[in-house]
């Protein structure tokens, strides 16, 4: 599904403008890095795609639908097509690794046979099989990160939004996560990765969109984390 921002402004309080006048189109199947200093509006942009937030001005469309106008049950269906890896993971602390991943499938009515199969697949793919019956607090940061990704891809979404998926990870683990994200993208899923990680952006070159103080300042194919000579 195509994602389009048309003149989007998001203002929180009268004096906090998180995003300003954003025009942006992300095609189906694209891989996009969202970069920019802290507080520049990356998370806000992602939250507008899931309609956790609605724009103060302008329009966000996902697959030709203005998501502001969508009815609540259709919103639920839209969200089933969007996987989200949160900056702070937001795993459910009372559920095991397995249950955290199974949960998002169960709540949208996947049959229990399929839940079992898909959850096991995901656990396998993310190398979490041995950790399946542990609770989030018993996991390392990188493992929690992987559970969060596993949960986001469990429903095979057509769009995956990853907010800092390699935060707090060493280079090797970040590499693993990137391989995983690339393979998900290769299977046709649109990816938007918000990140501060210069290493991954420069090693796995993709489209780069840069925000500064809520404004889009750069949109570059096969870009780098920083513009040459910019420090």
């Amino acid at each position, binding site marked *: 599904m195509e994602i389009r921002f048309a003149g989007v402004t998001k203002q929180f309080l009268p004096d906090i403008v998180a995003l300003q006048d954003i025009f942006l189109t992300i095609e189906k199947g694209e891989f996009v890095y969202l970069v920019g200093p802290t507080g520049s509006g990356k998370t806000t942009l992602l939250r507008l795609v899931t309609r*956790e937030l609605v724009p103060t001005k302008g329009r966000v469309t996902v697959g030709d639908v203005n998501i502001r106008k969508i009815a*609540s049950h259709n919103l*639920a269906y839209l969200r089933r097509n969007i996987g989200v890896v949160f900056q702070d993971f937001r795993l*459910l602390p009372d559920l095991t690794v397995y249950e955290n991943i199974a949960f998002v499938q*169960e709540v949208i009515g996947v049959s229990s046979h399929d*839940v079992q199969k898909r959850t096991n697949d995901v656990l396998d793919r993310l190398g979490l099989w041995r950790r399946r019956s542990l609770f989030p607090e018993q996991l390392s940061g990188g493992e929690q990160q992987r559970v969060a990704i596993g949960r986001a891809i469990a429903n095979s979404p057509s769009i995956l939004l990853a907010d800092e998926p390699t935060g707090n990870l060493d280079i090797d683990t970040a590499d693993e996560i990137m391989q995983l994200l690339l393979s998900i993208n290769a299977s046709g899923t649109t990816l938007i990765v918000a990140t501060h990680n210069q290493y991954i952006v420069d090693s796995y070159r993709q489209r780069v969109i840069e925000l500064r103080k809520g404004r889009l300042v750069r949109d570059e194919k096969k870009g780098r984390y920083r513009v040459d000579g910019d420090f």
Partner: protein
Amino acid sequence: MGTFRYVMRDTWRLLSRHSGLSLLTIITSVAVFFLVGASILFVLNTRYLVEAVEGDLTVQAYVRDSQEALEVVARKASSYDSVSSVRVVTSGEALERLKARLGKLAEAVTLLDENPLPPSVEIQVKKASFATVIARELIAMPEVEEVVYAGTVAERLQKISHFVARLSIVVLVVSLASAALVLFNTIRIGVFARKEEISKMLLVGASRTFVVFPYVLQGVILGTAGAALSVLLLWFSYGMAITALERSLPFLRLLTDRIIVLRVGAVLVLAGVSVGWICSWLAASRFVRQASRSI
């Protein structure tokens, strides 16, 4: 179905996570539904008693103690078309009757050395509605001291039964409201404890109905369990109450068939289901609607 299993597991999680609270809620609703059930049964019994008395066609005229007076009254009574039979009941006969009615307690009566019961003329009218007319005619006679017929007794009983019925409506409203409040709060606590999970569910595309469902089920289970346990309690205590009353007041006509408890019980369980349903739905859906609002 994955969904079904999830809902079951989740409901169980809700109930067991806050097991103390669940228990408290059940105990409260047992108390409430017991109270409601008991007052309904009481009202039904007084109604039954009133009906039984109202249907009685007997008019009893107590007469000054002289054979002559008795005969005068009996003759006068026989002259009415609406009267089907007239009989003179002597003091001795009256005493025998009382003994028979009292059953085991009859011994108490034999302790009296003098027969305190007055003789009377017992008149059967053809229809209950004639009783008042006949009673009025008889009381006008100088020989007659007092007339007792179903109407007077029924009237008194009716007053009591009205009062009880009104009281029990108050009991019903107050106690159901308090049960509803307790249930509502229990569910709300469950909802608040899982704010994060709820917003998560909504964000991955769970429908509101689905999110609310386990809470509604939790409410229905608590409400129904409370009502069902109270019916069980009513079943046994009604049996005991009836047995005790029959022993001490054998002349009282009561609803001795315990099927009545089951009928009232069915109503209570239905009330339990509805109260549980409505309260939990209100508690959960309002919160979920708020949580699903985009800012």
